[in-house]
């Protein structure tokens, strides 16, 4: 192995050489710098590989030929090697990125940069306190120099503020150091820790520690750091964020060894305040680099928490800290580098990235990595962290972390939304090959560490999952035209179904059919799209991959990962709609919020088991079981859009593209139901403080059904109407599950199937109509029945089925419902459900009447039927609906038997044509035949007596003694249920929306208020620093 001292000697030597070379040899200087950093990276990599292979153990390097305390010693282990690799690679890539700037600035800038990297490496390596001080001061001076690389004039002021702040830090550090030396007689950190002379009470130790923590720029004593992030050259900010912060973290981690871990709570406290505070303040930022600065500070806070919790993390400590650190470093450096190719500084200026899908891919990768989504390292790390925190009852900390993560996701995804949507400025981006190369390298590194962490993870590598790989493979196929990709997507889904068909149990099979056969059916409609439709297929397949994995997940980890994957996929899909940006963000926030609750629930249930099997949910300790149930149930209900957490759904479903809405409504919503089924099968009834939680769910289901139906009745937008109707339908299904009896579950499954068929069909029809008419507002349509007869038939069949009128399949649902409630224990919520039922007629009639009946508008006279590819799946759905109406046993019989093992009472009997329950009977085929015969007989009779009926013109009607002549004034459509609104409209007051809006508003106002704290004055920042030290000390003392 090359000596670790080369990390100090090599850059130092190169820096001096650069100084000695004659002026004007910029190219040579630059190559020399590159070479040095590349060499250092190689050396670091070789160390890391050696450690990883287990060839060598942690090594001490002694200088001056003696041992400490008489000499300075360095130590290199696995973590240090990884840190060094990170530092030097960041340095190398930044130098490549900075090529032009460095050529301009000359050898001195390169030398300073090398010294900077050297000093950071020193911080990572050294075990000597004073040596640490020296390296820190070196980084300070180098930073002071490198800030001037920026073209931004404001950087000068920021640099001075930085120097003022570091003065205070270094005074604190020096005083602490000398007293520590005085007390322990050594400057060696390991010596101090081992000597036991330094106790946790030591003020000197506190001073050193707080100085090092201040190097991490904790919230709120960090105004100076934010100014640097905002004004410095992005390449330098990248180093500062990725490398310098990493080095400081190593220093803090090391120093906490002294005083036998007694300051760990301090690190945790400062960390959690930083993580929450910085993420909160980032909410109201518009400047890209400042927001990245806030995010850096937040991530450092999170890492400080990890360091502070290392006493409970045990063997996972390095895995967790490393995962979060690498995710932060790579993503943040990548984002800073990206910001360097964007011309203007507002978040929306990043729209320039739209110019090339690869930029968007890089951006999405970094954002997903920062948020900690699978398959990136942060995901594995957060999973382990949360589980260990929960296992040690640190729930408050856990919740604070998750809350802040949600804030982080909010501003990051909102940013992503801005970038994807809206008009891009084609001039807004500078494409230099070296810069793009660096960004590409960061993107590759991101996926590389994702693979690496997956390999190291206890739970197995997510990147080995075939569905996920298939979805990612579509990224490589983006150059194909839509028809090819569509055929491929359909065959992939069907193929996966065929391969796995035998392994599904009846319950899974129902969902598998909906996902893997229903999905392709809806995808048929995607054939109408032209061009390449970039981004659609990876997102769709990601969603399907998540769903396919979800239903077969055995462990909570697999389940959660699948859940996150399907969330990401569907988020990208929703975001594709024209005006869907605000809805997509609300979708992802509710989904992630729900996911975090699920995560907490799983963690509580697992009690420290990092690879917890779902089947063990039934054996959770009784003390936590109801809480686990509650958290998981709320998590799942965010996906089924139960009332209270439903506000994301209407917009998301309404604004999505025509072929996306059916997938979201028909398929995606079922993920939540599947989760609930798994949960309730495993955990059964739970009660919390004497309240039966299934009873609460009954109420939620009933209220969702009622309010969803009511709101649907008052919509003018056809797709919003259908979206609200989905809320209601899922409310019924939830209600069925919460009944906790055999037929209730069958009811839920019946709704799963029915809702998939008719809602997909209706969304497709309405989508086709909207495509032709160019509007989704129903009162602007009318009389389309003759122009779009097939769409009309689909909607007609659809609404008959939804309404539950015999002879179609909706009736089966109603029949099972009545049989199921016969044995219900709670009757009050039933009344709500009863009230909800007939309201469905209101919106269903309105849907079909205002679009297809009534008066045809002049501007629609030339319309054609919806595109063939949109009609085809609708007609297949019509056929499915008919078949399912005639022989529901086809799908339900097996499930009915399967459910017997969980609910032995109350199964159905499927003898012959009649389905019999304990209370009643139902014969779908007889009903269909009887109704058909009666109907056809009467129809024949009418044809006979009325065979000469003449078709008359549109305005051949008379009312109020006038003949109307304008369709607009004759089409009774707008505010169709005005009297009903007068009577019951008060129930649809958007209280829930107002509630969530108020929370959002409060958070933003708070952030807006708090950020006034950073008034830009260097002196104020100094006061912050001093106050931070004093207050932290007083609080720490007060607590201990």
């Amino acid at each position, binding site marked *: 192995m090359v000596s670790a001292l080369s990390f100090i000697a090599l850059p130092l030597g190169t820096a001096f050489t650069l100084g000695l070379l004659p002026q004007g040899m910029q190219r040579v200087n630059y190559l020399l710098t590159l070479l040095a950093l590349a060499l250092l990276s190689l050396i670091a990599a070789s160390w890391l590989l050696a450690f990883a292979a287990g060839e060598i153990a942690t090594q001490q390097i002694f200088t001056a030929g003696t041992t400490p305390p008489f000499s300075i010693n360095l130590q290199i282990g696995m973590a240090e090697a990884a840190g060094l690799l990170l530092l030097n690679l960041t340095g190398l890539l930044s130098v490549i990125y900075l090529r032009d700037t460095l050529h301009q600035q000359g050898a001195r800038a390169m030398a300073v940069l090398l010294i900077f990297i050297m000093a950071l490496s020193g911080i990572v390596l050294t075990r000597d306190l004073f040596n640490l001080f020296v390296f820190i001061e070196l980084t300070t001076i180098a930073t002071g120099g490198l800030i001037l690389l920026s073209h931004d004039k404001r950087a000068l*002021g920021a640099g001075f503020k930085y120097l003022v702040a570091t003065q205070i830090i270094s005074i604190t550090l020096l*005083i602490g150091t*000398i007293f520590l030396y005085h007390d322990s007689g050594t400057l060696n950190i390991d010596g101090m820790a081992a000597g036991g002379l330094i106790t946790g009470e030591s003020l000197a130790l506190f001073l050193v520690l707080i100085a090092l923590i201040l190097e991490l720029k904790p919230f709120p004593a960090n105004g100076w750091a934010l100014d640097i992030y905002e004004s410095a050259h992005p390449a330098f900010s990248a180093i500062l964020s990725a490398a310098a912060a990493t080095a400081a973290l190593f220093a803090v981690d090391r120093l906490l060894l002294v005083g036998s871990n007694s300051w760990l709570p301090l690190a945790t406290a400062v960390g959690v305040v930083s993580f929450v505070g910085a993420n909160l303040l980032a909410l109201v930022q518009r400047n890209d680099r400042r927001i990245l600065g806030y995010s850096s500070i937040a991530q450092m806070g999170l890492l400080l928490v990890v360091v502070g919790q290392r006493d409970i993390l045990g063997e996972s400590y390095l895995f967790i800290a490393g995962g979060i650190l690498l995710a932060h470093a790579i993503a943040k450096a990548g984002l800073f580098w990206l910001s360097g190719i964007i011309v203007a500084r507002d978040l929306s200026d990043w729209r320039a990235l739209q110019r090339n899908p690869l930029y968007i891919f890089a951006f999405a990768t970094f954002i997903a990595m920062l948020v900690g989504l699978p398959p990136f390292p942060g995901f594995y790390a957060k999973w382990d962290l949360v589980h260990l925190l929960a296992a040690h009852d640190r729930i408050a900390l856990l919740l604070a972390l998750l809350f802040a993560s949600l804030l982080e996701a909010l501003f990051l995804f909102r940013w992503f939304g801005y970038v994807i949507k809206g008009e891009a400025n084609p001039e807004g981006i500078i494409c230099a090959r070296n810069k793009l190369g660096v960004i590409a390298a960061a993107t590759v590194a991101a996926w590389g560490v994702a693979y690496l962490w997956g390999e190291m993870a206890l739970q197995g590598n997510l990147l080995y999952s075939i569905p996920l790989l298939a979805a990612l493979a579509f990224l490589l196929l983006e150059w194909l035209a839509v028809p090819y990709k569509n055929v491929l997507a359909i065959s992939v889904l069907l193929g996966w179904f065929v391969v796995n068909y035998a392994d599904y149990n009846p319950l899974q099979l129902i969902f598998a059919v909906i996902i893997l056969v229903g999905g392709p059916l809806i995808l048929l409609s995607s054939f109408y799209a032209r061009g390449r439709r970039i981004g659609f297929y990876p997102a769709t397949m990601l969603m399907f991959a998540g769903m396919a994995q979800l239903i077969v997940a055995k462990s909570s980890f697999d389940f959660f990962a699948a859940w996150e994957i399907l969330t990401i996929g569907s988020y990208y899909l929703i975001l594709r709609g024209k005006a869907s940006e605000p809805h997509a963000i609300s979708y992802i926030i509710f989904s992630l919020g729900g996911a975090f609750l699920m995560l907490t629930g799983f963690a509580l249930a697992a009690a420290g088991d990092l690879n917890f099997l779902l089947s063990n949910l039934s054996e959770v300790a009784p003390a936590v079981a109801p809480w686990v149930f509650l958290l998981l149930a709320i998590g799942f209900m965010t996906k089924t859009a139960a009332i209270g957490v439903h506000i994301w759904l209407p917009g998301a479903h309404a604004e999505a593209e025509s072929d996306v809405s059916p997938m979201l409504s028909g398929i995606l919503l079922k993920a939540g139901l599947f989760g609930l089924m798994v949960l309730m099968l495993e955990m059964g009834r739970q009660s919390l403080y004497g309240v039966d939680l299934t009873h609460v769910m009954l109420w939620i289901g009933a209220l969702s059904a009622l309010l969803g139906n009511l709101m649907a009745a008052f919509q003018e937008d056809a797709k919003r109407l259908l979206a609200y109707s989905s809320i209601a339908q899922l409310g019924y299904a939830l209600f069925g599950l919460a009944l906790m009896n055999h037929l209730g579950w069958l009811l839920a499954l019946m709704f799963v199937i029915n809702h998939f068929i008719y809602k997909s069909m209706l969304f497709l029809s309405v989508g086709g109509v909207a495509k032709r008419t160019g509007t989704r507002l129903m009162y602007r349509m009318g009389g389309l029945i003759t122009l779009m007869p097939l769409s009309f038939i689909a909607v007609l069949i659809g609404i008959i089925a939804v309404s539950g009128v015999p002879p179609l399949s909706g009736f089966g649902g109603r029949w099972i419902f009545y049989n199921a409630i016969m044995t219900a224990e709670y009757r009050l919520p039933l009344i709500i459900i009863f009230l909800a039922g007939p309201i469905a007629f209101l919106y269903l009639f309105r849907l079909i009447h205002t679009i297809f009946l009534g008066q045809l508008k002049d501007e629609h006279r030339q319309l054609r039927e919806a595109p063939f590819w949109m009609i085809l799946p609708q007609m297949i759905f019509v056929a499915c609906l008919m078949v399912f109406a005639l022989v529901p046993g086809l799908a339900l019989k097996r499930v009915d038997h399967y459910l017997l093992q969980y609910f032995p009472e109350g199964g159905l009997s499927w003898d012959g044509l009649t389905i019999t329950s304990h209370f009643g009977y139902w014969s779908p085929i007889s009903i269909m035949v009887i109704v058909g015969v009666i109907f056809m007989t009467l129809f024949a009779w009418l044809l006979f007596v009325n065979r000469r009926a003449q078709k008359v013109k549109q305005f051949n009607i008379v009312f109020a003694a006038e003949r109307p002549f304008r369709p607009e004034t004759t089409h009774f459509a707008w505010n169709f249920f005005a009297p009903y609104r007068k009577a019951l409209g008060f129930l649809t007051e958007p209280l829930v929306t107002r509630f969530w809006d108020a929370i959002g508003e409060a958070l933003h106002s708070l952030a807006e208020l708090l950020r006034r704290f950073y008034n830009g004055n260097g002196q104020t920042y*100094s006061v912050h620093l001093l106050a931070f030290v004093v207050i932290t000390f007083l609080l720490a003392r007060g607590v201990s």
Partner: protein
Amino acid sequence: MAYIALATGFLLILIGLYGALTHSHILRMIVAFTVANTGVNLVLVGVGYMGGRTAPILDKAVEVSAAAQRIIDPLPQALVLTAIVIGLGVTALMLTYAYRLYVTRGTLDISRYTELKW
């Protein structure tokens, strides 16, 4: 003696910090920090001082065998020397900044450099 040095050192630090926080003129701030740095150095020396011992120079006056009992700990002094050098570097950098700030903006009032905030 040592206590006087220590007390003076801390007093200087406080004076320096007070000065840096109350004066908005950049040059005055730099001077104040220099004062504070001097105070820190004084504290360093004061802490390292051991009463009744001699300078850590091994010559005829101090024999090598008895050195450990007779000389004071040389390390703090080495530290002070390093700290002074580093302090000088930082002060020089700050002065450079002050110069550049004055050239670009024509003022040395730190409260005027608040265009980066919030």
